[in-house]
């Protein structure tokens, strides 16, 4: 069995071997070492998501910290039968980062700062094989699909906002989004060995 097949399967199918889910279960039982281990595995992805959404190193740092606190204090609310642990973790991260961005926008501070420089590179954590395969699957999508998904996910724009911005009907946005997700699903499975 190829190692990368397992890595991608884990990202796609909850219920399979999921180290992050095991760590969340231990965190729910107040195992602090599990928090450190989860940090080692997921901090890079969480911080990258915060940087992408907030475009501000200081705010991203703060939200990354807040995310880990949230994961620690609400680990017991994770349900492994619903989705993979990383999907849940990234949902929590995105929500906090978008909330922060909206708060900053309300205060008129968004985009006041220069675009962040990447921080010094540290040894990569997490699962680089799965990440590369997911990135490859995204790269196989038509550019419009990827842009639409990223606008909705990282940009936090609602369907109505995207429709208004692009001057197209809301129904068109919905159908394009659905089609993009379907193509991403196919692209992910096509990338498997």
């Amino acid at each position, binding site marked *: 069995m190829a190692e990368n097949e397992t890595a991608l399967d884990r990202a796609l199918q909850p219920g399979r071997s999921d180290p992050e889910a095991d760590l969340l279960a231990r965190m729910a039982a107040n195992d*602090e070492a599990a*928090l450190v281990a989860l940090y080692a595995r997921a901090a890079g992805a969480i911080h990258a998501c915060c940087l992408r959404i907030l475009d501000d190193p200081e705010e991203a740092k703060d939200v990354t910290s807040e995310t880990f606190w949230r994961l620690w204090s609400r680990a017991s609310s994770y349900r492994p039968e619903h989705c993979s642990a990383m999907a849940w973790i990234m949902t929590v991260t995105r929500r906090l980062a978008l909330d922060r961005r909206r708060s900053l926008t309300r205060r008129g501070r968004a985009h006041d700062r220069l675009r962040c420089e990447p921080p010094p590179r*540290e040894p990569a954590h997490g699962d680089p094989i799965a990440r590369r395969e*997911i990135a490859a699957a995204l790269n196989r999508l038509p550019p419009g699909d990827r842009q639409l998904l990223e606008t909705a996910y990282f940009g936090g724009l609602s369907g109505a906002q995207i429709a208004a911005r692009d001057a197209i009907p809301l129904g068109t946005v919905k159908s394009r989004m659905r089609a993009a997700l379907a193509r991403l699903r196919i692209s992910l499975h096509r990338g498997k060995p």
Partner: protein
Amino acid sequence: MREESRFGSRNECTTIRDRIEAFVLEDVAPREAVHIERHLARCAACRETVHEERKLFALLAQALEPQQPPPDVLLNVLRRVDGSERARRSWSAAVGMAVSAAVAAAVVFMIQPTDAATLARALGSPEVAVINLFAAVDSPLTSHYEYRTQSRFELDDSVGRILFNVTSGEWQLVVHGLPRPPHGARYVLSALIDREDKELGTIERWTNGVAVLKGRSPDVDLTRTERLSLTLVSADSRLRLLESVDGAW
């Protein structure tokens, strides 16, 4: 009501499916979210669709090139966890922690490492003896017969100094503002010598935000150290937290 009719039983799944992307992206009003969640609780097919879409969207974030956050992010989380754990254990423990934190903060803010007497009064703990030894580095009574040197750590409000006795190989590190290590994890001090990290020892005591590590490494020539680092080590991870910012050996 209009909301009820939108989620009527006849076309419920069709209506829900039309809103699933918005629901997953948290782009629905709280009331609508409650309606959808109620439907999902009794409809396995729609639930599966939601899980699938949530997973697909999350992959967008997982595809990003990882960016390691600054190490003080972990320290801040550990401080917060430590505080909450103590508060959870008992109210009196929480009061004690607040007092201890206030004392520790005062120590960090007000006292220079060489001011041993003041430090002793403020801390009133067994660490005083250790810190007194450390503080003696600049004392005219001791510095004339032992060659000692210091290196400094700095990371937000975590500040530390290391003292090394070249003659005996004894060393001692005091770090202020370091959170208690999580259960099952420990702090490890390492020295980078000839491009190789040599482990010197692990934390001995941690009290009131002051971590004390000391040991003897006669086989390691610490004068050739390029960099000192403090790492949080658990059974399944190693995270570098602090690095010396000056190596004036």
